[in-house]
C-alpha cells in the first residue's frame, strides 16, 4: 500500500492537527473498516467521509534517445471541517499536491508543492468531472486511460497513462492494515502497471517520453499507530510482467510492525496478498544524508519473497530524491532499479522507493 504517501500524509495531518489546531476531528469521519463495497469508477474519486485521501502517481520514463526520468505527482486531500456551509471558500478540506521530476541521466532532481482550498473550482476530486486536480496540476481519470498534467515555472509534464492490468484492491477484506487495532487501516487501490507516453519539458528542452507508471489511491481516517514513526515502501515493475508492492511500518524503537504487508501481481493481473511473514525487506547499505533535512536514508535495499522465488536488490542512480516540504514532513521518494533473480532466472525491473520518518521534518516546516 502506498502507505508511504499515506503515512506522510498522516504525519502531515497529525502536524496540521497538532500545530495548526485545525478543527477537523477524526470522530467526524468514517474509519477504514473491513467489508467496504467498492464501486468503480466512483471509488476512483473523492471520499469526503474519510479525513485523508491521496492519489499517488510515480513512474519511470525515458526519451527515445535514452534520457531517463522518474516522476512523482501526488494529490492530497485532508478534511478540516464537516460543518455544512454553502460558501465555496469555506474550508472543508485542504488540498496539497507534490510534483517531482528526477532527471536520472542528468543527475538532477527538482520538486514543487502547492496547497489550496477547494474554492470555486481551484482544487478538488470530482467524479462528475472525472478529475482530481490542484490548480493546473491534474489527473483526468477515465476508465481506459488517465491523463496527467503538471507544471512549474521551469518544467512541465503531460502524460497519458493506460492501465495494462485491472485495478488492485490491496490488503484483505477491502482494507490495508497498518497496525493492530480497529481503524489503523486504509482503503487502498492500485494501478500497478500503467503504460505511459507523453512529453516533458525541463529547462527549455522538450523530451518525448514513454515508460511505466504506478498509481495508488488511498482513503482513511487516522490509520497510523502512535508508536509508529514512519515506513518504507516499494512498488516494483519487473520485466517479466509482474509487480511487487511491499511496505514496512517502523516503530520508534526501530522494530518493524507485524502488520507490514504487500502484494504480488502476476502477469495476468492476479494479485496475491503478502503478509509480513511472506517477505523480507531490509536496508543494505549506501546511506545518504540529506543536506536539507539531515535525514539519513538507506538507498540500497534487499528484498526477498521466498514464496515466489524472488530475491533482488533495489538501488537508485540518483541519491538526492528527497522531497523537502514546506507544508508537511519531508520524505525520500525516488526512481529505483531492480536487479536479482526469480527462480534462478535473471530479473530486472524499475520502480519507486519511498522512505518516510527519517527527516526531523516538523522543525523545518514553514507555515504561513
Amino acid at each position, binding site marked *: 500500500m502506498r502507505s508511504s504517501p499515506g503515512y506522510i500524509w498522516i504525519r502531515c495531518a497529525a502536524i496540521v492537527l497538532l500545530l495548526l489546531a485545525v478543527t477537523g476531528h477524526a470522530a467526524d469521519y468514517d474509519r477504514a473498516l473491513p467489508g467496504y463495497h467498492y464501486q468503480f469508477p466512483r471509488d476512483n474519486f473523492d471520499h469526503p467521509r474519510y479525513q485523508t485521501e491521496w492519489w499517488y502517481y510515480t513512474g519511470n520514463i525515458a526519451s527515445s534517445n535514452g534520457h531517463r526520468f522518474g516522476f512523482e505527482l501526488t494529490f492530497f486531500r485532508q478534511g478540516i471541517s464537516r460543518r455544512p*456551509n454553502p460558501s465555496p471558500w469555506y474550508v472543508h478540506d485542504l488540498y496539497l499536491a507534490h510534483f517531482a521530476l528526477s532527471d536520472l541521466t542528468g543527475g538532477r532532481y527538482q520538486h514543487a508543492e502547492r496547497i489550496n482550498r477547494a474554492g470555486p*473550482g481551484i482544487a478538488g476530486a470530482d467524479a462528475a468531472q472525472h478529475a482530481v486536480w490542484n490548480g493546473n496540476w491534474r489527473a483526468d481519470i477515465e476508465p481506459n486511460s488517465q491523463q496527467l498534467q503538471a507544471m512549474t515555472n521551469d518544467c512541465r509534464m503531460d502524460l497519458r497513462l493506460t492501465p495494462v492490468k485491472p485495478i488492485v484492491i490491496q490488503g484483505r477484506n477491502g482494507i490495508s492494515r497498518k497496525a493492530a487495532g480497529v481503524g489503523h487501516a486504509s482503503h487502498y487501490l492500485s494501478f500497478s502497471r500503467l503504460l505511459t507516453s507523453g512529453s516533458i519539458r525541463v529547462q527549455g528542452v522538450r523530451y518525448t517520453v514513454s515508460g511505466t507508471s504506478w498509481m495508488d489511491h488511498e482513503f482513511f481516517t487516522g490509520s497510523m499507530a502512535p508508536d509508529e514513526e514512519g515506513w518504507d515502501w516499494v512498488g516494483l515493475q519487473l520485466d517479466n510482467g509482474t509487480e511487487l508492492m511491499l511496505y514496512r511500518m517502523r516503530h520508534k524503537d526501530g522494530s518493524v510492525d507485524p502488520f507490514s504487508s504487500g502484494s504480488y501481481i502476476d502477469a495476468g493481473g492476479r494479485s496475491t496478498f503478502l503478509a509480513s511473514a511472506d517477505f523480507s525487506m531490509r536496508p543494505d547499505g549506501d546511506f545518504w544524508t540529506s543536506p536539507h533535512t539531515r535525514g539519513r536514508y538507506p538507498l540500497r535495499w534487499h528484498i526477498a519473497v521466498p514464496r515466489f522465488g524472488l530475491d533482488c536488490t533495489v538501488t537508485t542512480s540518483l541519491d538526492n530524491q528527497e522531497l523537502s516540504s514546506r507544508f508537511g514532513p519531508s520524505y525520500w521518494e525516488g526512481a529505483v532499479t531492480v536487479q536479482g533473480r526469480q527462480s534462478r532466472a535473471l530479473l530486472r525491473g524499475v520502480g519507486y522507493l519511498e522512505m518516510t520518518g527519517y527527516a526531523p521534518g516538523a522543525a523545518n516546516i514553514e507555515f*504561513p
Partner: protein
Amino acid sequence: MPYLCLFLRLIVRPMLREKTRSLLVLFAVSLGVAVALAIELAGDAAASSFHTSLQTVAGEYNLEVRAAGGVPQSLVGDLARLPWAIRVTPRIEDHATVAATGETIPLIGIDFIAHANDPDGARFSLPQNTSIFNDINSPDALWVTRSLCDHVGGTVTLLINDRQHAYTVRGFLPSSAQVSGDVAVMDIDAAQQATGKRGSVDRILLKVPDRPGFAQWQQRIRTLLPPGVQLLPQGSETAANRRMLAAFRWNLRILSYIALLVGAFLIYNTISVSVVRRRAEIGTVRALGAGRRAVLLAFLAEAAVFGVLGSLLALPLGRFLAGGAVRLLSATVNALYVSSRPGPLALSTGSMALAFVVGIGVAVASALAPALEAARVPPTEAMARGRREYDVRVERRRDAVLAVLLALAAAFTSRLPALGGKPVFGYIAALLLVAASALAIPALITILMPVLSAALRRLLGVEALLASRSLAGSLRRTSVLVGTLSTAIAMMTSVAIMVGSFRQTVVTWMECQLPADFYLRPAGEPGADRYPTIQPGLADRIAKLPGVAAVSRFRAYPLEYQGLPATLASAELDSPQARQGTEFLSGQPSSVVLRALATGNNTIVSEPFANKHHVHTGDALTLPLGSRAVPFHVIGIFYDYGDEGGIVLLARSTMLRYLPDPAASSLAVYLTPGADLETVRARIREAAAGTDVLLFSNGEIRREGIRTFDQTFAITYALEAVAILVAVLGVAGALISIVIDRRREFGLLRFLGASTSQIRGLILVEAGLIGILANFVGLLLGYLLSLILIYVINQQSFGWTIQFHWPVAVLIAALSGVYAATVLAGLYPASVAQHLNPIEVIHEE
C-alpha cells in the same frame, strides 16, 4: 575678483543698508517657493498612499482582472486551472471604519491558504506554534497593523457597510508589507461574508511568465474571459486614479505658483528700483572700466542671492506648510478621488532641487529686464549730476498696443482644446492676460490719475495732490507696484469668483437634485471610491411605514471606463416623485427622460462623464456589467457636481438584470403630503435600529453637501491667502524703498514747512492710491481670469458646467481687506519718513 568687488560694492552694500526691505523681499520670495514646495510635497504624500494601502500583502503580479459589480468568483477556478504557469490570487478590497476612532481603513480579503504558495508573499507575524490556518474558517478572525491593536486576542470593532461587528485580532501584518497607515486583513471567506460580496471578488491578480511576452499573455487570457470582465496591467486602477488625480494636482500646482508669480513681480520691482536708484553709481563703475556684462551679471547676481537665500529659507518653511497642506489636500483627494491616507512627507533631493530651480529661476528671470537696463547705462550718466532723479521713460503707447495684442492672443488661446487632458492653453491664456494687464497699467494710470487726483485733492487736500502727482510722475515704479498687487488681487478675485460660482451652482443644483424628504446612507466617512451598502430589507421596512409615500434605492459601483475611473449607478424610478429633479443639458423635462430610462437598455450619463469620454445623447455605450458587455443607448446627459469621474446611471430594474445584488448604497425617502417630518424621522430610526445608517433630512443633506464642497476647496483658499500675503509684503517693501528713494524729496518738503503728519499722510495716501488702482485693475483682470477658469480650465480639467455668479460679499470683504492691508503696509515707511531729519537731507544735497 573685480567682479566680486563690484558685486560687493554695487549690490551687497545697498542690500545690507536697507535691511528691512531686503528681508521683506527675501521673505516674500521664500514664501512663494515654500508654497510651491509644500504643494509638491503634500501632493506626493497624498498620491503615494492609496497605492500602498491597496497593494497591501499583494506579492509581485503583473496583470489584474476586474469587472463592474465584481468578478464572478468562478473565474478564480477557471484561471487557476489554465494549463500555464500563472499565479492567480483573488482579492476582496473594501473599506471599514474603526468604531473606536472613526478612522476609515482598507479592508483586504485574501485566500490565506493559496497565499502560502506565494514564495514572495508576506508572512504574517503570529504567536508561536500557531498558523493562519488555525482560524481559517472563523468569520471573526482579523489580522491588522500593530498600530490598530497591539495584542493577539484583542478586539477591533469595525463598521463595514451598515453594520458593526467585533473581530478578534489573530496576528499582525508583516513589517515587510510596507503599509502606510492602518490596514485590516481577513481570509477571503470571512471578507466576502463581512462585505456582503458573496459570489464575487473585487480583483484577481495574475503573475504570468516572461515568455512568450506580456502582450501575448494578455491576448491569450483575454480571449478566455467573459466580455464584461476586464484584463488590465496590474496597478492600472491605481494608474487610472493617478491619471484623474494628475489633472487635479496639475491645477493645484499651477495655483501654488501664483504666490511665486507675485514674488517674481516683487523681485522685478526691487531690482528695477535698485537700477533706477543706482544709475549714477552704475555710470561711475562703467566710467571706471566695468563692462556691460559685469553690470548685468552684478544685478542678476543680486536676484540670484534672493533666489538662493529665499529657496534655502523655503526648505524648512515649505516642509512646515506641507504639514498643513497635506491635511487639506488629503481631505480633497478623499472626497473627490480615492480613499487615501497621506504617506510620510519626505523632503527629497528632487523636491529640494525643485525649490532651488524654481526660486533661482524665477528670481533671475524676473531680474533680467532691469539688469539689462542697468547694463545699458552709459558711463556719462556718472557725470550727469543734474539727473539724480532719472525717471525711466515709459513707452506707454507701445506698451498699450502690446497689451491689446496680448489680450487678443489670450482670447484666441483660450479657445484651443486641452492638451493631453490638461488645460495648458487655458493657463497660457491666463498668463497672457496677466502680462497684458501689466503692460496696460501705465496707460491706465495716466488716464485714471488726473481724475483721481482731482477727486482726492478735494477730499484730502494738498497731500493727496502731491501723492497722486508723485505716483503719476514715477510712472514706472507705480506701474510695477500696481502690477504686483493687482496680479495678486486678480488671482484671488478670479479664484473667488470661480469657487463662488461653483458653490452657487452646486447649491442650485442640489435644490432640484435632492427632492426627497430624507436620505439614508451607511455610517462612516464617505469617499469617492467607497461603495458601502445598506442591507436590502431596510428599504422595504421603510416603504411600509405610515407617512412614507415612496423609497427610491440608489446603488453605485466603481467602473473603469476607457482607463478612467467612473461610477456605475442605478436609481429606482418607479414613483413619480423619484422622476423629478434631474436637470438635463438638453433641457428635456426630467420626468420624460427618466420614464424612458426605465425601459429597455437605456442610460443617462453625467456631464463630466460625457465630457471626458466624448459621449453625446443618442450615442451607444457598451458597459461591462458583471461578466457581460452590454450595449446601452444614451438618452440624456445630466448635470452633476458630485462625482468628478462621472456617472453612468441606469434604472434599478435594468441594473438588477445584470447585477442582481439588491443592496442599496443610499435611500431617498419621499413622504406623503402632510406627513410630519419629525414623526416619520422617528419611525425610520426605529426601523433602522440595529444598522449603522445615517439619516439626513433634506436640509441636512444640503448642508452636508456644502460642507464637503468647502472642505474640498479649503486648500484653494489657503493658497489664495498666501498669495495675498506675499503681495502685501511686497507693497510694504516697495513703499519702504519709495521712502528711501525720496529722502531728498521728503527732506525738501519738510524743509519747506511740511509737517511730519503731512509727510505721513502723503505716504499713506500714496499707499491708498496704489491700493485703489490695484483693486481696480485686479478686479477687472480677476473677472477676465475667472472667465478662463470657469469656461476653459474647469471645463477642460473637470468637465463641469458652472453658472457664473459674483460672490459679492466674499469679494467686498476680501478686497477691502487687501485695501486695508495695503494702507497698513504704508504705516512703517510713513514712520520712517516722519523721522527724516530735513537738515541732514538738505545737507546731502
